C-alpha cells in the first residue's frame, strides 16, 4: 500500500476528529447534570420532548467529584454545553467568568418563573451583582437525622434544640463497651459541619469584603472549639474513613445522629432494615441559644451557558423543570427537595414526616460567601477541621494556619478590588 494512500485515508478521517458531539438539524440541547440528578432527570425529558417536538435534550451525567474541574476545563476549551446544573456555591465563579447568561429578561417574560415562587434565602444565592445567574432547581440544606429510640432511652423524647442539649445527649449516647457514639461527623470528606457551626456562632467566615479569612476571629474559634469537643470527648468517631457506608453503622446504633441532606431520606428508607423504619427521624439543627440553628443554603440551580446557540429553547427546558408538577415529579424520583414553595403544599411533601423538618430549616438558611474561591476555601476548612479532630493541631494553630492559607488564596481578589 502506497504511503500516499495511507495519508489520504487518514486525511479522510480527520473531519471525524474535528467533530465533537453531534450535529443537529432540529435543536439538540446538551444538558450536563451531576450525580444522582444526572441519572434521574433524563427520565423527565421524554415528556418535555413530547410537548416540544422540535427540541431534543441530551442529558450527560458527570460525577460530582470531577464536575468542578470538568466545567472549568470546558469553559477554557469553549466546549461548555447549552445548559447545566450548577451547585449554588459554584455560581459566583461562572458568573465571574461570564460563562452564564443573565436570566432576568427571560424571567420578566415568563409565566412560570417568578422570584416570589422560591424560598428567598435560596433565590438569593443565585443573584450576583443584580444578575440572576440561575434558577433554583432543588434545594439542599443540612439537618439532623437521628435515632428516635436511642435518644429516648437517653431521656430525650424530643430532639435537642440547643447546643447544650446537643452536647448532653451526645455524651449520654457515647460509650466504650460497646463502642458507640452520639454523632457521626465525616471529617474526611464533608466541610459542612464545621462551617455550619461557625455560621451558627455568627462567624462571617471571611471579612473585609470577602478578601481575608476571619477564621481566627473569636466566633469561628469558639465554634471550632466546640466542634473539637465531639472528638476529644469521644462523642464522635475520629477515624471516619472506615465508615464508607453510613447506613450500616446507623442501623447498628454505632452512632445515633448525623448531619446530612435530603437525599438521605430516600436512602434511609431504602437501605435501613424494616424494623428500623419507625425509629429514625429528621429535625432542624439545634442552635447555640436554643432556637433553630441556621444551616447552609445549598442545592443546585439550572443555568444557561452563554455560548449556547439555542437560548430560547434552553429557557423552555428551564421553565419546564421549574413547573410545580414537574418539580414534584423530580422529587418523587430523585428525592431532591423542590425549590418552589408551593410544591411543598402537595400532600406527598406536606404529609411527609421527614420533610417537615426540612421545610422548617429552609426558612433558616444562609448563603456562604459568593466568591469564586469559596470552593477551594471550603476544602481547606475541611482539611484543618480534620486535623483538629485528630488532635494534630490545636484550634489556635489550625485557625491561624487556615487564615494564612485563605489570605493567600484571596490575594488576587484583594489586588483586583483594592490594588489596581
Amino acid at each position, binding site marked *: 500500500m502506497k504511503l500516499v494512500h495511507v495519508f489520504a485515508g487518514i486525511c479522510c478521517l480527520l473531519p471525524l476528529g474535528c467533530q465533537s458531539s453531534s450535529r443537529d438539524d432540529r435543536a439538540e440541547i446538551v444538558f450536563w447534570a451531576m450525580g444522582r440528578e444526572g441519572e434521574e432527570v433524563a427520565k423527565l425529558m421524554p415528556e418535555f420532548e413530547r410537548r416540544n417536538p422540535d427540541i431534543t435534550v441530551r442529558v450527560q451525567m458527570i460525577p460530582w*467529584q470531577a464536575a468542578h474541574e470538568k466545567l472549568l*476545563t470546558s469553559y477554557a476549551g469553549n466546549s461548555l454545553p447549552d445548559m447545566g446544573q450548577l451547585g449554588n456555591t459554584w455560581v459566583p465563579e461562572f458568573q*465571574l467568568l461570564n460563562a452564564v447568561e443573565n436570566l432576568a429578561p427571560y424571567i420578566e417574560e415568563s409565566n412560570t418563573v417568578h422570584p416570589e415562587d422560591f424560598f428567598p434565602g435560596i433565590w438569593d444565592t443565585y443573584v450576583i451583582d443584580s444578575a440572576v445567574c440561575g434558577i433554583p432547581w432543588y434545594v439542599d440544606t443540612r439537618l439532623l437525622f437521628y435515632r428516635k429510640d436511642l435518644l429516648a432511652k437517653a431521656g430525650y423524647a424530643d430532639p435537642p434544640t440547643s447546643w447544650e442539649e446537643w452536647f448532653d445527649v451526645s455524651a449520654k449516647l457515647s460509650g466504650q463497651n460497646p463502642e458507640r457514639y452520639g454523632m457521626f461527623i465525616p471529617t*474526611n470528606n464533608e466541610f459542612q459541619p464545621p462551617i455550619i457551626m461557625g455560621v451558627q456562632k455568627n462567624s462571617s467566615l471571611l471579612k473585609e469584603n470577602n478578601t481575608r479569612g476571619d477564621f481566627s476571629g473569636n466566633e469561628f474559634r469558639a465554634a471550632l472549639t466546640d466542634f473539637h469537643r465531639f472528638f476529644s470527648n469521644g462523642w464522635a468517631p475520629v477515624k471516619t*474513613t*472506615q465508615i464508607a457506608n453510613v447506613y450500616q453503622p446507623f442501623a447498628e446504633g454505632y452512632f445515633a445522629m448525623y448531619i446530612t441532606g435530603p437525599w438521605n431520606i430516600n436512602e434511609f428508607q431504602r437501605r435501613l432494615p424494616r424494623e428500623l423504619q419507625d425509629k429514625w427521624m429528621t429535625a432542624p439543627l439545634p442552635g447555640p441559644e436554643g432556637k433553630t440553628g441556621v444551616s447552609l443554603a445549598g442545592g443546585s440551580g439550572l443555568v444557561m451557558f452563554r455560548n449556547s446557540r439555542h437560548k430560547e429553547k434552553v429557557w423552555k427546558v428551564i421553565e419546564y423543570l421549574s413547573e410545580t408538577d414537574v418539580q414534584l415529579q423530580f422529587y418523587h424520583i430523585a428525592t431532591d427537595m423542590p425549590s418552589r414553595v408551593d410544591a411543598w403544599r402537595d400532600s406527598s411533601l406536606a404529609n411527609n414526616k421527614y420533610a417537615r423538618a426540612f421545610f422548617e430549616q429552609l426558612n433558616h438558611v444562609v448563603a456562604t460567601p459568593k466568591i469564586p474561591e469559596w470552593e477551594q476555601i471550603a476544602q481547606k476548612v475541611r*482539611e484543618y477541621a480534620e*486535623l483538629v479532630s485528630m488532635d494534630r493541631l490545636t484550634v489556635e494553630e489550625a485557625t491561624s494556619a487556615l487564615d494564612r492559607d485563605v489570605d493567600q488564596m484571596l490575594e488576587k481578589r484583594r*489586588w*483586583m478590588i483594592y490594588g489596581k
Partner: protein
Amino acid sequence: MGNRSHIRAALFFLAPALIAIGVFFFIPVIAAFVLSFTDFDIYSLANLEYARFTGFKNYTRIFDDPLFWKALKNTLYFLLIGGPLSVAVSLCAALLLNSRLIRFKTFFRLAYFTPVVTTLVAIAVVWRFVYHPRFGLLNYMLSWFGVSPVDWLGDPNWAMPAIILMAVWKNFGYNMIIFIAGLQNIPKELYEAASIDGASWWQQFRSITIPMLAPTTLFISIITMIGYFQLFAEPYVMTQGGPLNSTLSIVYYMYQMGFRWWNMGYSAALAFVLFALILIGSLIQSRIQKKTKIA
C-alpha cells in the same frame, strides 16, 4: 550527488517530526516557563488584564508552601522505598529466570510481565478493592497469618505503603526484562573461572554479577526514578491524595492547582520544580554509581 539536494532531502524527512516536536513540545515547555513567572489564574482566564508578571513569587511561594513540602515528602517516600524495592524484586526475578536449572521460562516471563501492559487506571480500580478493609483479598490473606485487618487506604500511615506495593507489583516485570538482558551479556567464562577457583554462589554474585550489572542497574534506577517522580494516577484513582494528604504527590498537587483551582502560574512553577528535582536526582544517581565503581 549534490550536497544541496542531500540536505534538502534530509530536511524533508526531518521536517514533520521536528515541527511536531517543536510546536507541540518545546513551545509549551517555554510557555510553561513563562507562565510560571505570572499569576495566571481563573480571573485571567476571564480577562487577560487580570494576569500579572510576578517574577519569582511563585517559586518562593512553593518554598513556603507546607502542602508542597508534604507532596515532596510523599513523593520521595514513594521513590526511596519503592524504587530500591522495585529494583530488588526485578533483580531477584531476573536471577530466578536466568537460572539454567529451570524450564518454562517463557510462561513465567509472560506472567511477570502481564501487570506491566495493563492499564494503570484499571489496576488501581482492582487494587482499591483488594485493599478493602473488610472484603479485600489482602486482609483476607493476612488473616490466615493471624494479622488483624489493616485499613490500607484509609489510614494515613498505610496509604503510601499500599500504593508502593501496587506500583512495585505493576512495574517489576519491566525492569526484570532489562536485567535479564544485562545478565545474559555477562560472559559465562567469568563464572566458570570462578567456580574452578572454588567460589560459592554468593561470592560469584558479589564479585561478578553485581559489578558487571552496574551499568544496567544505573540505567534501571534512573528510569525508575524518573517514572516514580511522576506519581499521579494511583493517588488520583485510589485515594484522591488522602487520607490527610498522605498520598498527595507532586504531580497530583500540580494537577489540583492547575486544573481544579486554576492557579495556572503556580502550577507551571510546580512543574519546573519537578523537572529540576528529576534532573538533580539523575545527577546524584550517576555520581553515586561512579563513586561506588571506583571504590
